[in-house]
C-alpha cells in the first residue's frame, strides 16, 4: 500500500517535472526581438540590409530583428530624440557622435568570449580609434573610410601635366593645381582642405594644435610646423587654383567633398573618400588615386574613420544584441553588404575579396589604409573638436577669405594662443585630456 502511494507520488512528481520542462522549453524558444536602426546608402543599400536580417534570422531562429531603415539626414535627430527621452532607443545602431558614447554598452567581455570574432580580425587602427573609448570596447568598426586625392586623368592629359605620385609634397600640389587651372573653362586645379590639423597638417611636420598632455597651446598652434602648414594654405588660396568657400558652398556636396565638381571635370584634383570613389567609378570618370601629399622623411598620416556599430546601454537583451552585432559588423554581415552594396569592409580578410579589387583605384585606396590615422590623436584629445577648434577658427577663416597677408600668418596664430588656451583649460575638466 505504502509502496503504491510512493509510486503514485513519484509519478505525479515526474509528470509535474515533465510539464515544467516542456513549459520552460516553450518559454526558452520564445524569440527575442532586437531593434536595429540603420541607414540606407550606396554602400549599404536596403536590399543588403534585408539580406543581413534574413541570413541572421536563418542562423538564429530564436532572435528576430526589427529593423528601421532611415535616411542619413534623419538619423542624428532621431538618435538625439530617443537618447534624450531615455527610452525608445534601439538595441543596435551607429553611435557615431561623441555625446552618444556614454550610452553604449561595454562589450569587452562579449568580444573576449567570442570564439568566432576578435579585435585582431579588424584593421588595427580602425578598431583602436573607433571601437575603443576610455579603454572599453564600445562597438565594432563597420566599414572603413579614408581621405585621399583623386585626380582626373582626362584633365591632366588635356593640360599636359604628369599624374601625381605618392611621394609628392604639399608644394607640388599647389604647382600642379596652378598648371591645371583654366578660368575659361571654369576649371580649378584642386580643392582646399576642409579643416586644419587633418592629414596635410600632420604630414608637413607632425603638427598638433596643443601638447599631448592637453596643457599647453603656446609653441604648438603658433609653432614652426603649424605656421608652415597655415602658410601652405595661404599659398594655396593665393594661387587662385582652388574654388572659393562660396563656390564650394554652392557647388559642393553635403560638406563631405566636391565630388560633383570632380565628376564634371571642373576640378583636376580633389581630396575625397572611398564613397566618392565609387560614385566617380559609377559615373565612368577616368581617375586615379594618390595619398594626400606629405614632406619626405616625415611620418605619413591619413584622415580616416569607421562607423561605430554599438549596442545601446539600455538594452534588455545584451547577449542577443551582441549576437546580431557580431554578425552584422563581423565578416558575414560586412561581406553581404560588400557583395550587394559597395561597402568597404573593416576586416582585411573580407576586403581582399572586394569585387573590383584589381582596379587601379582600389589598389590606390588600399595604399592609404595603413598610414597612421589623424584620429589616433583626435580620438584621445576630445577637446580639440569639442572646444579648441572653434577658438582657432579665425586664422582659418581669414586665410580662406584672403583677408591677411602671407607675413601676417605668424602674428595671427600668435594672437590665437590666449583664446585657445582658455578654451582648452575650460574643456579638459569637462571632456578629459
Amino acid at each position, binding site marked *: 500500500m505504502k509502496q503504491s502511494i510512493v509510486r503514485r507520488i513519484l509519478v505525479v512528481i515526474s509528470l509535474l517535472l515533465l510539464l515544467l520542462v516542456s513549459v520552460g522549453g516553450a518559454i526558452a524558444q520564445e524569440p527575442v526581438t532586437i531593434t536595429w536602426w540603420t541607414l*540606407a546608402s550606396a554602400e549599404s543599400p536596403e536590399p543588403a540590409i534585408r539580406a543581413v536580417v534574413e541570413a541572421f534570422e536563418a542562423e538564429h531562429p530564436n532572435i528576430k530583428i526589427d529593423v528601421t531603415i532611415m535616411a542619413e*539626414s534623419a538619423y542624428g535627430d532621431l538618435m538625439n530624440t530617443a537618447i534624450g527621452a531615455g527610452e525608445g532607443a534601439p538595441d543596435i545602431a551607429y553611435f557615431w557622435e561623441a555625446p552618444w558614447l556614454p550610452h553604449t554598452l561595454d562589450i569587452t567581455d562579449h568580444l573576449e568570449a567570442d570564439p568566432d570574432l576578435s579585435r585582431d580580425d579588424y584593421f588595427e587602427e580602425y578598431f583602436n580609434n573607433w571601437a575603443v573609448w576610455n579603454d572599453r570596447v564600445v562597438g565594432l568598426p563597420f566599414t572603413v573610410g579614408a581621405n585621399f586625392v583623386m585626380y582626373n586623368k582626362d584633365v591632366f592629359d588635356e593640360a599636359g601635366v604628369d599624374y601625381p605620385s605618392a611621394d609628392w609634397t604639399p608644394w607640388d600640389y599647389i604647382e600642379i593645381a596652378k598648371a591645371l587651372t583654366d578660368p575659361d573653362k571654369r576649371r580649378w586645379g584642386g580643392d582646399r582642405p576642409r579643416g586644419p590639423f587633418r592629414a596635410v597638417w600632420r604630414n608637413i611636420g607632425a603638427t598638433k594644435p596643443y601638447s599631448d598632455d592637453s596643457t599647453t597651446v603656446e609653441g604648438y598652434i603658433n609653432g614652426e610646423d603649424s605656421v608652415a602648414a597655415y602658410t601652405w594654405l595661404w599659398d594655396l588660396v593665393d594661387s587662385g587654383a582652388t574654388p572659393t568657400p562660396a563656390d564650394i558652398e554652392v557647388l559642393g*556636396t553635403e560638406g563631405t567633398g566636391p565630388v560633383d565638381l570632380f565628376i*564634371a571635370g571642373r576640378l583636376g584634383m580633389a581630396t575625397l573618400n572611398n564613397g566618392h570613389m565609387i560614385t566617380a567609378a559609377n559615373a*565612368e570618370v577616368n581617375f586615379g588615386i594618390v595619398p594626400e601629399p606629405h614632406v619626405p622623411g616625415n611620418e605619413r598620416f591619413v584622415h580616416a574613420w569607421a562607423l561605430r556599430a554599438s549596442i545601446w546601454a539600455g538594452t534588455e537583451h545584451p547577449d542577443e544584441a551582441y549576437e546580431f552585432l557580431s554578425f552584422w559588423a563581423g565578416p558575414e554581415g560586412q561581406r553581404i553588404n560588400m557583395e550587394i552594396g559597395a561597402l568597404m569592409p573593416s576586416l582585411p580578410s573580407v576586403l581582399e575579396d572586394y569585387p573590383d579589387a584589381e582596379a587601379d583605384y582600389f589598389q590606390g585606396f588600399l595604399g592609404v589604409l595603413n598610414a597612421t590615422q589623424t584620429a589616433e590623436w583626435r580620438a584621445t584629445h576630445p577637446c580639440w573638436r569639442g572646444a579648441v577648434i572653434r577658438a582657432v577658427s579665425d586664422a582659418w577663416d581669414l586665410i580662406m577669405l584672403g583677408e591677411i597677408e602671407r607675413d601676417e600668418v605668424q602674428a595671427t596664430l600668435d594672437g590665437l594662443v590666449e583664446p585657445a588656451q582658455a578654451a582648452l583649460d575650460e574643456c579638459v575638466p569637462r571632456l578629459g585630456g
Partner: protein
Amino acid sequence: MRTEPEQAPAALSIQRQLRRSAARRRVIRAMGHVLVYALMISLALLFMLPIFWMASTSLKMPREIFAWPPEWIPSEPQWGNYAEAFGKYPLARYMLNSAILVIANIIGGLVSVPIIAYGFARFEFPFKHALFLLMLSTMMVPGHIKLIPLFWLYQKLGLVDTYWPLILPAFFGNPFFIFLMTQFIRTIPRDLDDAARIDGAGAWGILYRIIIPLSRPALTVVVVFTFVWVWNDFLEPIIFLRDWNSYPISVGLAFFQGRYSVEWHLFMGATLVSIIPILVVYFFAQRHLIGGLASIGIKG
C-alpha cells in the same frame, strides 16, 4: 463777341488737343501695361528657373549636372532616370502615404479649428482672454523643444511607428489656424447669428449653417496650408515612423542624399514629381487662398 466761324477753329483745335492728349494717355497706359507685363513675365521666368533647372537635371547624366558651360536642355535626355528613381525606392507608396496624412490632417483641422475659433469669437467664458493668449503663446515654442517630450509620451502610449502622432494633434486645433479663424469669425456680423437664433437655430446650428459657410476663404487657407505643411513635413515623420513602407514622400526623397554624395539626377526627378500635387492644389485654390488671406488681413 466772337463770330461763329471764329469759334469753330478754336473748338476744333481744343478737340484735337483733347484727342491727342487722350491718345497720348492711351499710349502711355499701353506702354505701362507692356512694361508691367514684361516685368511680371521676367519675374515669373526668374522664379521658374529653379524648377526648370530641376527638370533639366532630372534628365541628365551625373557628369553633366555641374558641367561648364551648363547645358540647359540635355542633348540626350535620360528619361530612364525617372524609372530608376521610382524603382530604387517605393516613392509611389510614399506619395500615397503623404496623401493619407494630408487628408487626415485636413479633416482634423476642419473639424477642430472652426469649433475652437467659434468659441473664442462668439462666447464669453471665464479666463477667455488668458486662454486665448496661452494658445497663442504655444506658437512661440520652437517645435524642436517639444520633440523629446512628445516622443516620450507617444512611446508610453505605444503609438510610435503608427500615423497617430502625425494625425492626432490636428484634431486638437492648430493655434495659427485658430487665431486666423477667430479673427475671421469676428468680422461676420452678429446680426446673422441673431437672425438664425430667432429662426430657432442653436449654437451648433449657427456654426454649421451660418459661420462655416461664410468662412470659406479662411477654411481654404486652413486646407491649403495644412496640405503644404504636412506634405513637406520631414522632422516628425522621421521621429515617429519606423516602417520602411510607411514613410511619407518628404522622407523618401531624403534617401537620395547619401552619406557621401547626392544622386542629383534621381533626386531632382523624384522631387519634380513630388511637387506636382502641391502645384495642382495651389492652381485650383489660389483664388480662394489669396482672397482668404487678403480678407483676413483687411477685416481682422
